[in-house]
């Protein structure tokens, strides 16, 4: 082991990796609680299956495509396939004080949860086989390249100057746009917009708790070290979640007479999504402003706009992750400050008007890439396998028809 390995940084990053891993099961509970009883296992199955499948993909070639030696600024190639050359010494290009494999496995958890977010858009009606094929292909041709552009050495957006601390674009805007594409391609659930309410809100709340907890690893872990910067990201993450929760609750209280549990946890997630690009660049007060604004904007996106436009993004993957991610990316261009992170840049509110434009351009480019490729990939998978289950199977429920299981065996 070389002397550059720092045991404090390594310990924190090992924990961060575990925290981010927990977010995918957390998402399983969050989404699972929101669907009907007859489909809860299908949601959890999709999430857990992705943990298995994408981890394998990552080690076999995903990590290499995303972070491997650059080809043309767009992809990492296959020289690190099978983790060839990814050892226990540090790779200073990415993280100078932790083993390279730790950086790899930390990033793996991001690659796992991103396709899982899209589940929210096609919940309760997608064939398991089509879901698997789509998710693996999507991760390979949409996630891995985008991760390379923004985070990979030689990636053409890495030096562009847009600020994205923990993956607001690569994870949230990316998954959010794919979710929108999926909602449009796969079509609405039977009977939409008259659909059943969440079957188990306590599960959804549990899921939100696990996501909040895990997000500390997602954001503070993206500092790749245990120091002032990770603390700053930790505080920003928490304050954004708290402010967003309050904002959504207040807005709901005013416009609909009562604050709801579902509204509260939706606000929390919106705030966490929005602070993801900003976490290591803003002050605690800046984070609170970002969280509160994200709570308000996502509330409108989910409660007003979706209803008006009529698309069935069942669990608001686009409304919260897509919209929240975009709000966060733009607000980072306002509140970023080199006082918090000298290696970054200032935003509009700290005297630099150029940053906002950089945020906007990167956002638009990545959102367009994600939407177009996701749409095309879904159409392709639909043509060869068929995306949607037959109407009768959708009626009986995916748990029984796709997995031969019933979540709550109450009788007998």
């Amino acid at each position: 082991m070389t002397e550059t390995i720092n045991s404090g940084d390594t310990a924190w990053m090992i924990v961060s990796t575990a925290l981010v891993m927990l977010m995918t099961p957390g998402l399983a509970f969050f989404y699972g609680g929101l669907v009907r009883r007859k489909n809860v296992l299908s949601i959890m199955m999709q999430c857990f299956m992705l943990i298995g499948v994408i981890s394998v993909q990552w080690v076999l070639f995903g990590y290499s495509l995303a972070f491997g030696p650059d080809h043309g600024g767009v992809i990492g190639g296959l020289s690190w396939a099978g983790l060839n050359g990814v050892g226990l010494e540090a790779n200073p290009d990415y993280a100078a004080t932790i083993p390279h494999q730790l950086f790899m496995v930390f990033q793996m958890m991001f690659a796992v949860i991103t396709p899982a977010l899209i589940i929210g858009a096609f919940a309760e009606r997608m064939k398991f086989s089509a879901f698997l094929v789509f998710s693996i292909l999507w991760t390979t041709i949409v996630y891995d390249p985008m991760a390379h552009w923004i985070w990979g050495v030689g990636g053409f957006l890495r030096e562009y100057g847009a600020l994205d601390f923990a993956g607001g674009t690569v994870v949230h805007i990316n998954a959010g746009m794919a979710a929108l594409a999926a909602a449009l391609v796969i079509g609405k659930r039977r009977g939409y917009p008259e659909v059943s309410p969440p079957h188990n809100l306590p599960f959804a709340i549990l899921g939100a708790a696990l996501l909040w907890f895990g997000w500390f690893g997602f954001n503070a872990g993206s500092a790749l070290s245990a120091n002032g910067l990770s603390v700053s990201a930790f505080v920003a993450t928490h304050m954004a979640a708290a402010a967003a929760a309050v904002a959504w609750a207040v807005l709901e209280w005013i416009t609909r007479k009562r604050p709801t549990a579902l509204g509260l946890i939706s606000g929390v997630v919106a705030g966490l999504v929005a602070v993801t690009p900003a976490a290591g660049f803003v002050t605690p007060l800046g984070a609170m402003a970002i969280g509160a604004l994200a709570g308000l904007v996502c509330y409108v996106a989910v409660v007003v706009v979706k209803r008006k436009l009529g698309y069935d993004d069942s669990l608001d993957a686009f409304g919260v992750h897509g919209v929240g991610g975009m709000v966060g990316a733009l607000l980072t261009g306002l509140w970023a400050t080199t006082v918090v992170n000298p290696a970054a840049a200032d935003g509009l509110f700290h005297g630099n008007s150029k940053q906002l434009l950089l945020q906007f351009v990167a956002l638009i480019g990545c959102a367009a890439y994600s939407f177009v490729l996701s749409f095309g990939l879904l159409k392709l998978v639909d043509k060869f396998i068929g995306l949607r289950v037959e109407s009768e199977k959708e009626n009986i429920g995916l748990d029984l028809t796709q997995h031969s299981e019933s979540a709550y065996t109450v009788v007998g």
Partner: protein
Amino acid sequence: MKYVVAIIQPDRLDDVIAALGEEEINLMTVTDVMGRGRQKGVAEVYRSHVERNGLLHKIKIEIAVSDNHVWQTVDAITHGARTGSIGDGKIFVLDLEECVRIRTGETGVSALA
């Protein structure tokens, strides 16, 4: 007086309640049930345990009505619940001997509504 018991597909409930509402029939009891008729259940697998006599989730609606409202009720339920596929369900009409309003102690037809 009659007691109407209907077993329907769960996703038809909203339509049935709406159809009953149009006939001014708004009092009912609704329960989650498991059952099977000609529509066969789906096999369930739990590691080494395989269940083949699958029961499917259905909804039971119970309504107490006066004799001259029976067929309106049955027709409204049928209208709301029918899809034409096997599994639509069944309606049973039973004789109802007595009905009591707990709050006031009233009995008979006036206690129904």
